[in-house]
């Protein structure tokens, strides 16, 4: 069944392409949107959480951008070459780029950002940089990265939010976290920071000296801060807000809002992150330590129902450990379809004695609570004795960090390549207390470790593909975690805001090309 909202999205996408061809962009206007929750700061590179990314992605830039098919396209790097052995990457930078304070952007900024700033502050970039032997500026506009060994996803690592370029002349030699410029971020992006009224609004204004001729079209973007979900929906309804980024209103409000006049919905703009919802299952102890129990959970869950009812028909029911946007996905695996009969058989086979199992919902709002209730009901129907526990974000972090749970909801970004976003969930050397984002389930399989590690550095892609195929088969059989949903995060906007989502990080850099047809 295709949900009406999903249909509306395809129709809107169609309409969008035709009008985009017909109209020429107009200059001017300010767009009002929402950031939720209020970000702790705006210096990307120092802070990488979602609210910081969505605002600061318009202030800062990276070397590359990515299309919705995850193909790299130029941002601060105009072009790039990869050596035949896959170890040397040479980036040729744009020559007419200046920072918002007027200083020129050069290769030294790139070396400083990557080699000093990110190595010290940024765990995501650090994970990539451990493959890098040296970073050198060979002239003012050329940077050469030499890798220790080939690293397949290297070209996917330069997205602005993860690998931000920061100005060397303002940060070199200072205490980064207490730098006076943190209050007034200086980037190279299409918008400049103007004002932050804490608790009320963050205002960005057009960068008149932006290197792309004619861009941006908008005079500015105002990010409103409204703590209550109901009030955010009202603000969109009464016209104060033009754009609702995904996750800013509850799912059950979305059908109502998207039926209003002049409101468009798009699911695009999340391909780089491909948020993938999973059910942690504690592999260490209790019934969840048994593979058959975990398989039974997969068969017991009616994931189509959750998608159609709780997620308004948006998103995809996943096949296996690799999401559909991830490279090297093996789509020949047999799906875990909803099959309560099979689940009961498996439970009987393992001799499940009715031991109580707890389930921890993600404390991110009403949709997640309802989803946990639906799963709880599914599991009870096949005879699993399950109880939901309520918690807040702090409690959830601690329970997962201490491995004190049986089943727990989460979602993770996949970053386009298995070596960036997927292997971290299954590698046994990624088991460590204290973080809710590593191998929390405690899955250990030497063959899986070997395959993932080999695949990360194998070269070229055909070699990687074969390794990843085998790993997917093992994971599919072992079910270290439950694969719930490739989440569809809808962005709602007034239809007269044009060209809003045009890359794989969507609104995180969307206002660069957006314009108002008013």
């Amino acid at each position, binding site marked *: 069944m295709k949900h009406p909202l999903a249909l509306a999205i395809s129709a809107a996408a169609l309409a969008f392409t035709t009008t985009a061809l017909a109209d020429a962009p107009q200059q001017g206007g*300010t767009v*009002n949107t929402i950031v939720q*929750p*209020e970000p*702790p*700061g705006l210096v990307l590179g120092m*802070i*990488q*959480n*979602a609210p910081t990314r969505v605002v600061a992605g318009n202030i800062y830039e990276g070397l590359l951008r990515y299309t919705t098919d995850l193909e790299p396209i130029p941002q601060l790097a105009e072009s790039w070459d990869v050596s035949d052995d896959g170890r040397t990457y040479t980036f040729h930078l744009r020559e007419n780029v200046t920072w918002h304070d007027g200083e020129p952007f050069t290769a030294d900024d790139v070396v400083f950002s990557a080699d000093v700033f990110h190595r010290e502050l940024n*765990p*995501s970039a*650090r*994970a990539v940089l451990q493959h890098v032997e040296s970073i050198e500026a060979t002239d003012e506009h050329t940077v050469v990265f030499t890798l220790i060994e080939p690293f397949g996803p290297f070209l996917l690592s330069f997205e602005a939010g993860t690998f931000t370029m920061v100005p060397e002349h303002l940060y070199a030699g200072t205490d980064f*976290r*207490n730098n006076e410029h*943190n209050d007034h971020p200086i980037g190279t992006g299409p918008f400049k920071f103007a004002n932050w*009224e*804490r*608790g*009320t*609004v963050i*205002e960005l204004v057009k960068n008149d000296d932006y290197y792309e001729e004619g861009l941006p079209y908008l005079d500015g973007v*105002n990010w*409103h*801060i*409204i*703590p*209550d979900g*109901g*009030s955010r929906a*009202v*603000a969109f*309804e*009464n016209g*104060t807000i033009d754009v609702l980024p995904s996750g800013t209103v509850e799912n059950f409000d979305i059908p109502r809002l998207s039926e209003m006049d002049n409101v468009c919905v798009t699911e695009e703009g999340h391909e780089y992150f491909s948020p993938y919802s999973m059910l942690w299952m504690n592999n260490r102890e209790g019934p969840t330590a048994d593979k058959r129990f975990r398989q039974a959970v997969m068969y017991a869950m009616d994931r189509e129902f959750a998608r159609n009812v709780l997620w308004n028909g948006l998103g995809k029911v996943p096949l296996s450990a690799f999401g559909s946007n991830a490279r090297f996905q093996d789509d020949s695996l047999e799906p875990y379809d909803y099959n309560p009969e099979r689940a009961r058989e498996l439970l009987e086979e393992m001799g499940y004695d009715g031991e109580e199992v707890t389930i921890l919902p993600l404390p991110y709002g009403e949709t997640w609570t309802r989803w946990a209730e639906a799963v709880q009901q599914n599991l009870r129907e096949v005879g699993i004795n399950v109880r939901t526990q309520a*918690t*807040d*974000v*702090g*409690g*959830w*972090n*601690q*329970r997962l*960090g201490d491995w004190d749970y049986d089943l727990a909801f989460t979602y*993770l*970004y996949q970053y386009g390549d298995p070596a960036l976003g997927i292997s971290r969930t299954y590698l046994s050397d990624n088991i*460590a207390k*204290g*973080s*809710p*984002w590593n191998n929390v389930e405690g899955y250990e399989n030497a063959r899986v470790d070997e395959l993932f590690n080999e695949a990360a550095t194998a070269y070229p892609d055909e070699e990687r593909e074969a390794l990843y195929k085998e790993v997917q088969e093992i994971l599919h059989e072992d079910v270290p975690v439950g694969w719930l949903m490739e989440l569809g995060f809808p962005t709602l906007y007034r239809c007269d805001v044009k060209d809003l989502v045009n890359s794989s990080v969507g609104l995180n850099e969307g206002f660069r090309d957006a314009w108002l047809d008013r």
Partner: protein
Amino acid sequence: MLYARLIIMRLFKAVIVLFLIVILNFLLIQLAPGDPAAILAGEAGAADQEFLNQLRERFGLDQPMYVQLWRYVSGIAMLDFGYSYRLGVPVFDLIMARLPATLLLTGTAFLISLVLGIIAGSMAAARVKKPSGSIIMALALVFYATPLFWVALMSVLVFSVYLDWLPAYGFYTVGAGYTGFALVLDVAKHLILPATTLALFFMAIYTRMTRTSMLDAAQQDYVKTARAKGLKPGIIQRRHVLRNALLPIITLAGLQAGQMVGGAILTETVFAWPGIGRLMFEALQQRDYNLLLGIFFFSAALVIVFNIITDLVYRLADPRIKGAS
């Protein structure tokens, strides 16, 4: 002279109480699950051990608890409230930045509820067996019993969505660029819904209390005397009945005033009012302990200050109360 000594005594006690509150708050907060570093790392969606260690060291969370407590208490003694973990800004600056908005909201609500509550209560007392008096009391009961968040949501729905008379949220109109009188007017417009919402509950209490208390006072002998010597009913109500009925209302007003810093969490959240209540709620969710403790400190200090003021006002309202209480 007497007042001066009283105030000094009370302030001395207040310092001791505050000191105990600081220690108690610090210890209580350790009981909450989750630590700020883990939450910050969680928000970032990626964290290695090095990142967590960096954060814990920066916040001083790697130290034993007694060291943390000592550092905190000695900081407070010098009015240094430390830095917010999440925002990296001095706690004192954050609180001061949010305080005006909160005081404007809670102060307005305080005045509205006190003034209208006393007026409505006196009217109800004077019309004790008439339908108009019953209507006032029925309304007061409704406001008293209705949950605040529901009133807030409904008032947004009616006055902002359907009627479009008043703004639904915020402190001022973003992007309008108002200055001077236009800005004052704009803020006032934004203030109406949240302040009224916040005022309704206390207004209802004041109404009920004023009425009961006035009816009680009206039975007293001195009122009979006043009536016997031929004073007009209006004057009797104001000078003899109301003044004597004020004591319980002052007690309640003191309590409400004490809540002015931290008592508007819900209202501030629904109406996106950039005040202390929201700051506190967010700090709690983020386990931003320094910030949370700072706000607790200010709320506690305010409660103590208003207790002292209440005691002084008692003496003004009823000269019979003297000396230490």
